[in-house]
Every structure is written in structure tokens, then in C-alpha cells.
């Protein structure tokens, strides 16, 4: 029992939760505003990781600087993907009628393309580097400096996002679209411009998460998929489109993962993650915080 009360485990859960929250935020934005199921989301995490890895090992650029570069690249890619693929999907009434299924298939294609382009050019070898790995002691909790940075950056990025949505004009527009798409368009929100903003922001957040991931673990072209799954579990827990809910979802999933594997065994991690996921979908498909919505 004493293991469970240790600060070490709590710290591990909080760090993981912060990372998860960051990954899930971007996914939730894209789903919430456009009903697009982005299963290529983890690939942006992977890409952010590779940008950081190559900048650091080849050019000597600090990962801290990559925290600016990678999100910029991610945002650019997001805008490109929106304009080339999804503008068309959302405008065609026939395609938009099954927007979720169609977006899932398109993003699956995008995900496969990203993974294999990276595997083709950079091979599937695990890549890692050492950066700020000295141990810092806080009270009786020991943590490497890069994990501390991860926690700080991810938490502040999530909180700034929430503040942006609460207080800025564009942020309010995003929330309006999440709640009532047609009504938001009626009161003068430029949906197309907003979609571009959301794609840019969502992809930038994923790329930022990738920078942080590469600081604490090795990456491969296929490192993104588990993050996509975790992010989907989290936004389902919190309610699809509910930004605050996904913070809670991230905490819950990270706690289940960290404490669950500590109590049982790490080989049960996947069973736990999927178990929680299935249980929530079956018992409360609209999410823990969600209200029941009338079926379409």
C-alpha cells in the first residue's frame, strides 16, 4: 500500500497526465469544431519528435528552441492538410453527410503516408538523445530535469489554450462553433477561417507534445499511434468536444495507467487502458461530464 502513497508515483502520474492533456487538446479541438476523427494526430507528435531529434543531433539546436520550430511546422502542415483535403470534404454535402467515417478513412491514409515516408527516409531505428537528464530532488520526489520541463511546458500550454478559448474573441468563436455550428455561422462566425485556425492550433499542439516526448523517450516512425489511442480514450472520457472534460480525462487515464501498472503489472497496461475506454463508452458514451444528447 505504501507504494501507492509515494510522491514518486503521484509525480509520474501528473507528468503523464500533462502530456496526455496536451495531446488530447488538439485532437478534441479538431473533433469538436468539425467532427473530424483525426487518427493521424499521433503522427504529428512523431513528427515533432523527429524535428527535435534532428535539430539537436545534426545542427546542435536545443530542444527548447524546437518548441517554437516544431509547432510552427505542425501548424503549417495542419493548414495545408485542411486546405487540400478537408475543405473539400466539409463543403461537399454528399461527403459531409458521413463526415466522421470519411474523415477517419482520410486521416488513416494520411497517417499511413506520414509513418511510411518517415520510415523510408529515416528507417525504423529508434532515435533518442540525452538532454537535461540530471536528477532534481523536490522533497522526497526525484525527477529528471527534462520531465520537469515536460510537465511545466505541457501544463502551461494547456492552461493558455483554455484561457485563449475563454477570453479571446477567436477563442469564443471556436467554443461557439463547438456548441452550435450552424448558429455560430448565422451570427457571423467565418467558419472556414476558424477551421484553418483550429487545424493550425491542433496540429501545433501535437507537434509541441512531440518535442516533449522526444526529450524523455526514444522515438520511431510508429511512436505516434499509442498517443492517438490514448488521446481518443481521453476525449471520450471527457466527452467529445468538451475541452475541460479532456483535462479530467487525461488525469484519470494517467492515474489508471500509472497506479494500475504499479499494482498489477506493466503487461496489463493495454488491457487497463482499453478496459476503461470500453467501460465508459458502454456506460456513458457521451463522456463522464457529458449530457445526454438527443440522437440525430
Amino acid at each position: 500500500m505504501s507504494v501507492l502513497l509515494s510522491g514518486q508515483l503521484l509525480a509520474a502520474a501528473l507528468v503523464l497526465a500533462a502530456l496526455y492533456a496536451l495531446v488530447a487538446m488538439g485532437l478534441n479541438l479538431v473533433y469538436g469544431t468539425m467532427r473530424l476523427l483525426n487518427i493521424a494526430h499521433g503522427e504529428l507528435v512523431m513528427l515533432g519528435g523527429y524535428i527535435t531529434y534532428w535539430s539537436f543531433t545534426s545542427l546542435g539546436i536545443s530542444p527548447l528552441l524546437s518548441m517554437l520550430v516544431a509547432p510552427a511546422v505542425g501548424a503549417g502542415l495542419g493548414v495545408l492538410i485542411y486546405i487540400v483535403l478537408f475543405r473539400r470534404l466539409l463543403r461537399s454535402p454528399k461527403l459531409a453527410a458521413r463526415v466522421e467515417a470519411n474523415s477517419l478513412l482520410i486521416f488513416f491514409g494520411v497517417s499511413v503516408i506520414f509513418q511510411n515516408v518517415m520510415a523510408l527516409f529515416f528507417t525504423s531505428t529508434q532515435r533518442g538523445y540525452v538532454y537535461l537528464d540530471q536528477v532534481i530532488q523536490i522533497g522526497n520526489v526525484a525527477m529528471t530535469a527534462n520531465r520537469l520541463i515536460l510537465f511545466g511546458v505541457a501544463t502551461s500550454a494547456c492552461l493558455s489554450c483554455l484561457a485563449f478559448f475563454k477570453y479571446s474573441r477567436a477563442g469564443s468563436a471556436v467554443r461557439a462553433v463547438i456548441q452550435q455550428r450552424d448558429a455560430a455561422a448565422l451570427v457571423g462566425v467565418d467558419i472556414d477561417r476558424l477551421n484553418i485556425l483550429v487545424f493550425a492550433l491542433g496540429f501545433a499542439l501535437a507537434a509541441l507534445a512531440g518535442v516533449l516526448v522526444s526529450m524523455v523517450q526514444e522515438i520511431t516512425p510508429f511512436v505516434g499511434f499509442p498517443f492517438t489511442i490514448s488521446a481518443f480514450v481521453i476525449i471520450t472520457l471527457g466527452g467529445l468536444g468538451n475541452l475541460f472534460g479532456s483535462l479530467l480525462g487525461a488525469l484519470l487515464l494517467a492515474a489508471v495507467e500509472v497506479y494500475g501498472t504499479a499494482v498489477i503489472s506493466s503487461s496489463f497496461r493495454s488491457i487497463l487502458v482499453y478496459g476503461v475506454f470500453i467501460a465508459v463508452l458502454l456506460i456513458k458514451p457521451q463522456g463522464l461530464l457529458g449530457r445526454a444528447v438527443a440522437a440525430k
Partner: protein
Amino acid sequence: MMRPALSEHLPFVGALAAALVASAALIVWGDEYAVSIGLTLLMWVALVQSWAAFSGLSGYISLGHAVFYGVGAYVMVVGWQILPVWLGVILAGLVAGAIALLLGWPSLRVRGPYFVILTFGLAEFVKYIVVSIEAALGRSGRLLIGTPSLRELFGAMLLLAVASTIILYVLRRSRLGSGLLAVREDEIAAEAIGINTARTKLLVFGLSAIIPGMVGALMSLRFTYFEPMQSFSPVTSFTIVTIAVLGGSDDVPGPLLGAAFLVALSELLWARAPELYMIILGVLLVSFVLFAPEGIYGKLRSWNRGEAQ
């Protein structure tokens, strides 16, 4: 509803007969390589036709059909040398069907994106349970020795491919199939005109799992090896959906065309340039969803109609 004239079924019966003749010729004259490609093609045909019987008609996209394939393979290897081989195959189908009823009963209540994600999650969940069971038993992979020959397996797979094709053809034109199509178009309205949507969905979902279970059993005999991460791999589910999108999943010819196309592409590229193969697959998937959502078959049909006008 007017009963269609018998002659309306002629093209279908003719195509089926032609496919049977071609397969028979392949068994008799084909070399090992040709038969093994034929087996792969028939495998995808059987899997995708079964998938289309449920997902194509109902619009409930299952991203978890790998679980039925995996369960079938697992039943086969667990029963290996306990049960007669072909009985094992049949049992594999029945267990997969039973699992589908078990999984479908709760999961068919959610729809849209939730159903897609849930089927994927359930398949992964079952995969990791099997992985844990095998780990607890201290087994890492099981070998099967003395499995039926390639040609026997080809024959059995042919039976499954034909059966799944006939099932989809008949179902599409039956009361039950019309019920499913109604669910796809508007579930509430379907309910309102007296279709028991819950029972219809569950029944067909269970049905669409039996053949994939048997396919899984046959493929474990083909590979003479079982490893849960491979047999339950989500790639199987994704490939099924990709084939259905490429070919068009609305009627029998679509999945056939999609499977033939994918197997040809994979033969050309998979061994030499696997990454390139996957990239092309990704590009095709994206382009088809955006520019030809009705698939190859749908495109061919609309061209035909265009010419006739």
C-alpha cells in the same frame, strides 16, 4: 415489392461460375506461387464480403473485424490435435459468431464515431487478453505441425469466399438486408416503420463474424504458426475497410474489385518496397474517399450509365 425476374440473377450466377472455373483451373494447373496468391485473394474476398454484409449495408463501420479473424485462429490452434481439422474450422466460425453477439449486444447501442472507436477498442482489448492468457500459460507463439496442404486450404477458402459472396448477394436483396439499408439511411425512421433495428443489427453483426472466424482458422493452418499480436493485428481491420472503400461496399462486385486490386498492388510492391506500398495505399485511400466515394465498382457503373444515355 415486385419479385425480380430470374434472369436478373443471371449475371451474378454467370460471374460466380466463371470464378469457380478459374479457381478450379488454378488448383489443377497453377504452381505453388500462383495458388498462394489465389489463397490471399480469396481470403480478402471472404473477409471483405462478410464485413460489407454488416458495415456496407448498415453504415455501422466496424473497425474491429480483426478480432473475429484472431478468435478463429486462436480456436483453431487451441483445438489443434484435439479436434479433427475441419471441425476445428467450423467451431472457429461458431465461436467468432458467438463473440460477435456478445460484443455486439452492448456496442451496437452506440453509433457513428462511437461505434467505430468502440469496435476498434474492443478488438484491441480482446487481443491483449489473449496475449495475457498466452503469457500466463508461458507460451510465446504456437506451432502447428501436419497442417493440410496449400491446395486443400485453397479449396476451403474458395468455399468461404463463395459463401460470403452469396450471403452478401442474397442479404442485399432480402427483407433483412432492406432493414439494414433502412438503418443506414435513417435509423429512427426505420424504427418507426416497424423494423426491429436492434435485432436486425445484432443478427447480421453475428452473421458477419462467422466467416472471418473460419478464415482466421484457415490462415493459421496456412502459416502453421499462431502469435496473438499478429493474428489480432488491427492492420487486418484497416485493410478490410480500405479494400471496401477502394472497391465500393454497396454490392457484391465492389469488394471483389477492391480485393483484386489490393492483392495485385501488394504482390508488385510489398516484398520489394513495403514503405512505398503503404504510401501508395494511403494516397489511394485518401483520393478514393474524396474523389470516388462510391469506389471502383460505383465509378464503373456510373460510366456505363453515362455511355448508355
